[in-house]
Each structure stands twice: as C-alpha cells, then as structure tokens.
C-alpha cells in the first residue's frame, strides 16, 4: 500500500486487518483435546466444565481446601498426575488423604524442586508431555508468577493437551493468563465437607458464583447446596 492509494482503499484494508486481529483474539483454543473436566453435575452453571490443555488457577483461603479441590479436579482428568512443590513449602501433600477425593496414590507422582525457577521449569515440561493427565504446581505467597510466566505455562498446556493447575494462596494472584481462576474457602460444617466456591474470572466468559458446595463422599462429586448460587 502506498501513499497514492485512495482513502477508501486504505480504510478497507484497515477494516480487513481489524477483522483478522479480532479473529486471532477470539480464536478457539487449539488445546483442549478430550472432554472437559466437569466441576458440577449441573451443566447450566459453567457449561461442560474446565477445558483440558489449558492452565487453570485455584486460590485457596485455607491450604487444605485448595488441595482438596485440586484433587477433585485432577482425579477427573484421568492418567498420571504430577504434583510439583518446592522445598520452601512448609506442607507436604499427604497421598492417603487424597484418596477420598478420587485421586489414587498410584496415579500420583510427587516432585520437589529446590528452588522456584526449577519448579516452574518442571511445570512447563510436564504440561508439554502428552503422557500426563494433569500437573499441579503449588505456588507460595511470594513466588514470582507474572503474566509472562503463566502465559508460557498456558501455551505449554495447549501444546501438550495436559490439564494444568496452579494452586495459590488467597490474595497472591495478580495478572494471569490462566483460562479460569477459582476461589475456594472453607465453610463451617458439622459433618460433610463444605466450601464456598467462586469462579473469579474466566477467559471469554463472565465470573460466576459464589456457590456453597458440599462434598459427597459416596459419589465423589461436589453438590450445590439449596439456596446458593
């Protein structure tokens, strides 16, 4: 295009470029192979569920609730699960405790990194590996996880088709390229496990919740309590 072009031709070209850009911005995710991972039995809440081959984030008000929610999701992605944490983490995952949430110890591989950059590298490598079902990275409060880092992880998950999960403490999350961000907080209960679950944001969709949910041990699923949501 040269300066000699008539103004109408220039505006038409600009319009074409805008269309292309819009198409790029909203293109369907290339990852997401296989069926999505359901969160609720009722598809009217957030559709069929969480897309595989993408990065998702869980912010937990208490460490226990976050791990339980992660275990519920990872149990549904099938296949082997890599659980990555750093040596700085004061807590260790206790594999027998994940069985009630459906995550069997034989499908669990635990990885401990001496430093945070290695944990991040391991997460990216894991997400690129189609032989894994899912990978979870436990991020502490002060650990560098900016837009660029999460974007790298998301692209890796798209390439490998692996379900990626970031487990972060409450209030630590800034900008992120994850497809969804969830918040989970424990609710007082007498018998069943109860949590307050919020979909803080999702790409290409509106935030949703909060829902009061309880865990049904018999079916291994989350049940929406009457009168919430």
């Amino acid at each position, binding site marked *: 295009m040269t300066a000699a072009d008539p103004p109408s031709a220039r505006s038409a070209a600009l319009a074409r470029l805008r269309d292309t850009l819009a198409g790029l911005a909203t293109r369907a995710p290339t990852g997401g192979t296989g069926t999505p991972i359901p969160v609720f039995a009722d598809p009217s809440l957030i559709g069929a569920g969480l897309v595989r081959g993408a990065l998702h984030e869980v912010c937990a008000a208490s460490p*226990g609730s976050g791990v339980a929610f992660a275990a519920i999701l990872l149990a549904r992605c099938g296949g082997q699960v*890599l659980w990555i944490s750093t040596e700085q983490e004061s*807590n260790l995952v*206790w594999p*027998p405790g994940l069985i009630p949430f459906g995550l069997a*110890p034989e499908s669990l591989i635990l*990885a401990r990194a001496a430093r945070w950059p290695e944990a991040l590298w391991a997460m990216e490598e894991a997400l690129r590996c*189609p032989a894994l079902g899912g990978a979870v990275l436990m991020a502490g409060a002060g650990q560098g996880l900016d837009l660029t880092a999460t974007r790298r992880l998301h692209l890796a998950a798209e390439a490998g088709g692996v379900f990626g999960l970031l487990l972060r403490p409450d209030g630590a999350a800034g900008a992120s390229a994850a497809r969804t961000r969830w918040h989970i907080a424990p609710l007082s209960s007498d018998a069943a496990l109860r949590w307050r679950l919020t979909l803080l944001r999702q790409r290409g969709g509106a935030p949703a919740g909060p829902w009061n949910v309880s865990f049904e041990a018999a079916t291994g699923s989350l049940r929406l309590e009457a009168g919430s949501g």
Partner: protein
Amino acid sequence: MRLARRYLAVHLPFWAAEHLRQSRPDLAQDQPLALWARQGARRLLVALDHHAAAAGLEPGQALADAEALLPDLQVLPAMPEASAAGLRELAVWAQRFTPISAALPPDGLLLDITGCDHLFGGEAALLAHLTASLAEAGLSAQGAIAGAAASAMALARVRHDGPIIAAGSEEKAVAPLPLGTALRLPGAMLEDLARLGLRSIGDALRQPRAPLARRFGAPLLDALDAAAGHRAPPITPIAAPPDLSVTRALPEPILTAEAIAALLDRLLAALCARLSRAGLGARRLSLTAFRVDGTEQRLMIGTGAPNRDAGHLARLFTEPLASLAPELGFERFTLHALATDPMGAEGQGALPMGAAPRPDGVLAQLLDRLGQRLRLARPAPMPSHWPERQWRAAPPHEAPSPAPPGWGARAAPVLLRRRPEAVQVTAFAEGAPAAMHWRGRVYPLTRAEGPLRLEAEWWHGGALPPARDYHRVQLASGERLWLCHAGGRWVVQGDLP
C-alpha cells in the same frame, strides 16, 4: 574328520584366599591367611592360603582352634560371591589363550584349547605360559591337559606336575587318582565307597556297573565316565562382557560448549550402537573429560528405565555439560555405560517406520529429564498408622503399587506439616480443645472432634515415644486443622480439607 578336542584345566587350590589378598594390600604377604564362614553357631575355616595349608590347617577346622595353633594367623570372613565373580573375571582373562573358557566354581578354570596350542609353541608351552602368568599374579595353579574336560579337571586337582595326556589314554591316566580329591564326591558317598575298598577312580571303574548304580545312583557313574573320557558333558563357556565405553582423543583441544556437545553426540551415537548390538539399555552413564593440564572432570547421568536413544541421553547431559570448566581445553573424552539393563528392540524410541513412541516411554523420558533437577517420588504404602510413616518415596519409574483398601482412612489430612507447628490450647470444653493460641492470635474453635488415639509402635522396639491423640478442629473461618496432643504438647500437624 572332526578335530579331536583338547582341554586345559586349571585348579587354583588357594583361590578364595589369594583372590581376597589381591584386593587387600594391607594384609601381610608372608603370614598365613584363612577365611571363615559361620555354620550355625560355629565359625569354621573354609579357605586357606598356602602358608596356612603348610602349617597344617585344614578347611572345616574351628576358627578358634586354628587361631590357637597359629597365633599369627590372619583371618577374614569368606566372601563367596566376590570369589565367584573374580573367578568369572579370570575366565574372561583366560580368553587370551582360547575363545572358549569357562569358570568352574569354586576354584577351577576350563579352557577348550583345540587348535590354539600351536600359537604358544605347543601344549606344554601353553600350559607353562598360563601357570607362569597366574603365578606372577600371585595365584597358585595346577594345570593339566587331556582330551576330555572332566579328565583334565580331575588330573589338575590331584597332580602338581602339569600332565599332558594324549587322546584316548585318559582312562589310564585318571585310574590312580583318589576319588575324593579328583571327583569332589560328597563325604558320605566317599565313606561308603571306602568301606567297599574303593579309593581310586580305577577301583570304581573296575566294578560291575549295575550294582554300583543301584547302590550310589547315576551321578557317580556319570562322574566316573566323564573323568575316564567316555562321555563329554557340555561346558558352559563364559562370554566376555561387551565393552561399553567409547573414547575419542582429539588432535586439537576443544573449549566451546558447541564443540563439546557435538563430540558428545558422536560418542553417544557410538555407545548406543554398541548397546543396541548387546541388547542393553543404559541406566547410568559417566562422561570423563580429560583436560590438557592433566586433570579430569566427570559428569554422571542416570535414567529411570534402560535407554539407548542417543537424542534423549544427550538431553539429559545438557545441563551437566554446562558445569564443565574447559580452561585451556579438553583433549580426550570417555563415555562409559556404568550400569545397563537388558532392553529389547521394542524399547527403542525412534523406530524407522515413524511409529509414535509408546506413551509410557514418553512419560519415562519426562521423568528422566525432571529427575536430573527435581526430586521425584511415587507414594508407596507403608505398614504404619503414624501419618508421617504411612508412605515412603518410591522411585518414580517403578510400577505404581495399588494402595491397600482403607489406607489412611482413619485420619484424613490432605497436607502434613514438614515440621509440626507448636500451638497452645488455651481453653477446653468438656475435655475437647475450645480455643487455641496460634501464630500470635487466639482462635476460638467452633468444633472439635476427637481424640483419635494412636499408640506408639511398640513392635519396632527401642524407647517408645508417647501415644498421640489427634483432634480435628475447625476455626471460626471454617479452616480445618489437624491437632496432635502428645507428651503434654500440642502441635498442628496437618491441614484438613
């Protein structure tokens, strides 16, 4: 016409002691040495060196008696596995004389020297050469050559003069040999034979066969026939282990990371070709880089499953390579497969047909890569009810073991503190904690469940730690914690979901 076979047998009368002495330079050379093994509650001599034998000691003697007889006796526990492995190595060494050699544990070597003797100037010269080489290495040896393997072995065990028996006259040569030493018959059978007046091989061979077989069974007749050269039981030749190390010497020292990586690729390709021919996959590799100033640097990698995919192994080396300090350059590299496992053709990653690698192979490669920098583990159940001992870290490549039903069902934290966090319980309601001081604040507890008492595992013995009482408590925020009360202290040991 078939070439008549010729066998050279070597008997090493003091093999176990002399082999051990080679690996223990701290032992005095000129003092007697004896090896012992435990038999029930007794410690008995099982092997001697020639000093000890000359002093009149015998295998089977009690260790205490022997020490009383010979105050300067050096004694060591016998190591039968090391001794057998050493004998196999010696058999491999003996392949410099013939391609077919075998180890006959515990103290014999057998060489099929058919058609080889002329290279050494005849059978007598070959035998002299072999025994001289062994003597140089500090090994006493007696050799014999005959047309049958068992005849040669029987002669070597008894005769010190290195007899060479012409084909066909084996029976005559072995006839005067005593049954016990020459054929290694069991002691009870020897006693019975001696009671019948049968002491030498010739005595036994002259007996009618049928009654002998009825009385002593076929093994005696087999041993006699083999020694007399009438039948030739097969020998199991030893195969030299494949050489799994490749070395490249460089005309010019190299310094740059690219040049080193390119050289490593060539070394890996050569090594993987050898591994493939041997049907092996590498488990542990070492790369030694020799610097021009005479120092060397060594890098090691390991794989979880046997592997001979050069590309994958090169990726595992990527990170360690960065730690090499070339300074003025490296002039020589040696790549050595330190540990290998058998690996069939199906394990190869890159098939020429372009077939996709198997998914478990992909996972194994991922775990290999991650394992170079992170600690990987699979949880394996442990028979304990104390939470921190309920699972152990198993190697990530191991086939996952299914959890026993009910494992961990009694207490269900999802996270366990690496170091339990001390708290003070400040109030109780009906014996259960009602408030606690934690991280500088007082938290009322809206709910407490427990106690669940776990007793110390007395079957481990030793001093018993106090029994533990576990409480599941809930804060006003809904957060659920797992408290442990033991020996008067309260700690947070884990997080509940």
